[in-house]
């Protein structure tokens, strides 16, 4: 049972980061970013490229690990800005921005996969283990360094983002824009520059998730598809825009995935996840966030 809980926490950490990126982007600029999978893969390849060079220079240990994490986040943040330059800035004040940007990000996602295929080929690229190899035993169960590291790094990153949003001026501007775009414009908050900032931050979170997930899987041209789907499921279940809701939904979905994989079958996971999100949206149209926060919209 403890193994299931640990596995659930690891899954929640990895997918929760993408989900928060999707959720923030939707709530602040009204764009459902289907290119989040492309952004995910961009971080994976950037980290892989860095690892290639770093190993060539003989770098190892903490330097290598920290670099992989940082370059993964950096690559995805840049990809987020790239998506913003194509799907957000030119379309932002047109009619039907939500539909247009949805189509634009879908296009980036599809074309992006082909670009990765051309640049890096179809082979899977492994990332070096960031947290070292080994296990710690806690009572009857144990967890690997990779699992422990994933949970800690994701939690610290999430805490930093929440702290920044709660206490800094830029964070306050971002939250203001999420709640009332007109009010934000009236107090001098630019939707365009704040929107790009949101895309960069969402990208960095996605890049971190990409590096963490690549500890278990590989980086490949299509490796962003499944995380995008799970991220979308979590952000929907959490009630797009609510950070506490998204965190709760990540825990719930992670647990569901871990339980299904352990007691049923791995192949049933998507069915179970979609069933959960459908049920949540039937009974709680605003997702779990509606339960956790008294005032929204």
């Amino acid at each position, binding site marked *: 049972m403890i193994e299931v809980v640990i596995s659930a926490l690891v899954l929640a950490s990895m997918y929760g980061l993408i989900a928060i990126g999707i959720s923030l982007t939707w709530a602040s600029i009204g764009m459902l970013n289907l290119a989040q999978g492309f952004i995910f893969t961009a971080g994976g390849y950037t980290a892989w490229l860095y690892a290639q060079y770093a190993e060539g220079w003989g770098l190892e240990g903490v330097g290598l690990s920290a670099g992989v994490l940082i370059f993964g986040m950096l690559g995805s943040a840049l990809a987020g800005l790239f998506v913003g330059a194509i799907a957000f800035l030119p379309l932002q004040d047109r009619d039907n921005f939500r539909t247009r940007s949805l189509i634009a990000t879908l296009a980036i996602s599809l074309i992006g996969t082909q670009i990765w295929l051309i640049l890096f080929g179809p082979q899977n690229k492994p990332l070096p283990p960031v947290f070292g190899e080994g296990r710690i035993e806690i009572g009857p169960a144990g967890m690997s360094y990779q699992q422990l590291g994933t949970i800690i790094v994701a939690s610290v990153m999430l805490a930093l983002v929440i702290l920044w949003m709660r206490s800094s001026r830029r964070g306050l*501007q971002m939250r*203001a824009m999420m709640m009332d775009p*007109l009010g934000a414009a*009236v107090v*001098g*908050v*630019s939707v365009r520059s704040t929107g790009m900032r949101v895309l960069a931050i969402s990208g960095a979170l996605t890049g971190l998730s990409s590096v963490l997930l690549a500890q278990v899987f590989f980086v490949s041209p299509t490796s962003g598809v499944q995380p995008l789907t799970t991220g979308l499921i979590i952000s929907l279940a959490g009630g797009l825009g609510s950070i506490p809701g998204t965190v709760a939904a990540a825990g719930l979905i992670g647990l569901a995935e871990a339980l299904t994989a352990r007691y049923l079958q791995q192949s049933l996971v998507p069915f179970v996840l979609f069933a959960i999100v459908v049920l949540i949206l039937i009974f709680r149209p605003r997702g779990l966030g509606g339960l956790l926060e*008294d*005032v*929204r919209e």
Partner: protein
Amino acid sequence: MAILEIEGLSAGYGPVRVLHDLSLTIEPGERLGLVGLNGHGKTTFLSAIVGLTGWQDGSVLFRGEQIGGRRTHGMGRKTPQIVRRGIALAPQGDAIFPGLSVRENLDSGAYTGATWRSRRKRRERILEVFPPLAPLLGQTAGTLSGGERRMVSVGRALMSDASLYLVDEPSLGLAPKISLNLVAALLEIDLGDGAMIIAEQNLPLIEGRVDSVLGMHAGDLKLDVGEALGDVPPAAGVHL
């Protein structure tokens, strides 16, 4: 130099033209009341000053600098820059941030430039104008009553370092006594070299307390309201 010099301003949304070739000049220290029925363009007029209309055309000089001009799309795109030059708008329907506390809502009015550092002092000043807000500072703005929300919205506009304050229908939807207090507090504020435009449907609320009153009818500025009041002088530079 005039605070605001508007010349031939037309504005609207899509195919609809709401404002027809308006001109208006406001001098430092002036309080202008803008009265008129619903749907005659008061809100559009205030919105056009900060670039929040669908399209607009005509010169808007703010302290000698052009902030208007012809614009066919890009609603609100220039608004943050215009606001940062020193124009504060308390828009119709509050537009406060429901999930932020009253304190954070007020502070958001001081985002622009160096005012952020003096936000505590500014907040104290707002609480002197609207004392009922003092015990509510930590409360989430979405849970406030209509009158309190309006105070937050107007207070947020007053937090900034503006020289032109635009207040859109401060009394809308409020109980008479509450709107009376709110407008009274608003009109007692020391503007210094600044100026203020208050759009208001309820003429008796502002009558005699503003320097001039203009009527707004079918997207045009009229003097008849001022003439009807007798002793209220017409605003400078109005072309009919």
